[in-house]
């Protein structure tokens, strides 16, 4: 499935809910069920700064694809991460670099995207894209 297809799938899932409360409940459910990061990878170096909640992001490059695992101490943040991972994990660096991630706007998460120092989503996406750039550069060496 392409990135855009996964995004469409998420958008239609969120369209089932009219109420913002239900959307948050859905995010909370996803947050609770996020496959947790390996304890050894929940390290200081994997901690993303600029988050009001703490976020750990770990990346592995296997057979040309980047596999992401992550965790956060806040449940809603974990829900958002699980969406990002669903869309962006196990993709090639190029796919990740060119991902427009329009689903974030479409499902009404834009308020989490404000360029604020307390906000994590921007930093998470930035970090994911940085990994993609780094692995791509490494691949070309």
């Amino acid at each position: 499935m392409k990135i855009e297809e996964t995004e469409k799938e998420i958008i239609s899932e969120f369209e089932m809910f009219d109420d913002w409360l239900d959307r948050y409940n859905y995010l909370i459910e996803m947050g609770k069920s996020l496959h947790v990061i390996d304890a050894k990878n929940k390290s200081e170096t994997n901690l993303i700064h600029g988050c009001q909640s703490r976020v750990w992001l770990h990346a592995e490059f296997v057979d040309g694809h980047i596999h992401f695992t992550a965790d956060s101490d806040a449940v809603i943040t974990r829900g958002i991460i699980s969406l990002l991972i669903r869309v962006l994990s196990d993709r090639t660096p190029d796919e990740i670099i060119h991902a427009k991630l329009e689903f974030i706007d479409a499902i009404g998460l834009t308020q989490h995207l404000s360029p604020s120092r307390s906000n994590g989503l921007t930093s998470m996406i930035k970090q994911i894209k940085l990994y993609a750039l780094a692995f791509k550069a490494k691949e070309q060496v």
Partner: protein
Amino acid sequence: MPLVQDIEKIRSDFPILSQQVYGKPLVYFDNAATTQKPTVVIDAISEYYREYNSNVHRGVHFLSNKASKAFEDVRVQVQQFINAKHVHEIIFTRGTTEAINLVASSYGRRFIGKDDEIIISEIEHHSNIVPWQMLCEQVGAKLRIIPALDDGTLDFEAYLKLLNQRTKFVSITHISNTLGTIVPVKDFIDAAHRWNIPVMLDGAQASAHTEIDVEVLGCDFYSFSGHKTFGPMGIGILYGREELLNAMPPYQGGGEMIQDVSFTKTTYNNLPFKFEAGTPNVGDVIGLGKAIAYIQQLGLPYIAEREKNLLDYLTKRLLETGNITIIGNAPEKTSVVSFLIDKIHPYDAGTIIDRFGVAVRTGNHCTQPVMDRYKLPGTIRASLAFYNTEEEIDILIAAIEKVKEMFY
């Protein structure tokens, strides 16, 4: 001034409060971050730009005279507001942060040297930590920290032990933005003065809630921000004792701070202009004047009583709700309540509370050492002003109930 005011009338003075967010009435409980502005302030700024925008102290023309007079009138107003002895002891800055930086740079670099000690406290916000850390790095001085007790008060006994002949400066907060603690600053000042150590107070959280009398307090420097005092952003006050300000070198060069300039020597202007380089923020100074007048008209005793009632009601409702831990329980407290809903991350709670139209702050409130001290991931902070109501507190409580329902 009657102590009972019409709350609806007061609220109508603040146009922003009547709006809706997410289709719900806005409940603004983030007053420690910034306060809302009454119409008189907004109108005064607009009137300045529409009718007499002009540079001050430079022209002989009508507009410049009018702007200069309005600007200097506010200086007198601030002098009276905090009961400073001289009007030239009032310096306009961009805010509390700049005022502290000014003192750290100017006083600090002249009078504080290697192995000297500067005392701050464990409950400072970053603006009263970082400028002193920077100074210490530059001159080789050391920072000493007054510890906080579990209830959020400062450990006075520990403070007394920190004072010694190497101590060259004390800078502490008047009121904590995270814990609400009102520090008994007079005791701290008196103790420092027994060692002839100057004391600066960070009044960022005090100016909107409590009477400030620098003569009674006896502090050597005091700072506060316009925007936390129902005035505009980008304007603040540094008060300094005349002798100290006179002994200090200028902080920045250029503009009104100069008397004579040649390429061989520049002589500096007198107080207060020595510390006001460049074109000042005239419109916002005028707005600040209106904000101070508004507060004085309402009366600080009225404000204090109203906010005490709101604080008591909020505290009572939170504790009744259950599963709530309040961080900061000093006996003397302003209307700031930091709390945690058990087992729920403040960010999760804040996200849901926001959707009820309630503006609370979540996170570390620019006081990371406070979070470290109490081992917290952050808190939810509701900070109230006199224009808030008991009904608004009920809305917050309802939002908290919903948070518990969603996360437990």
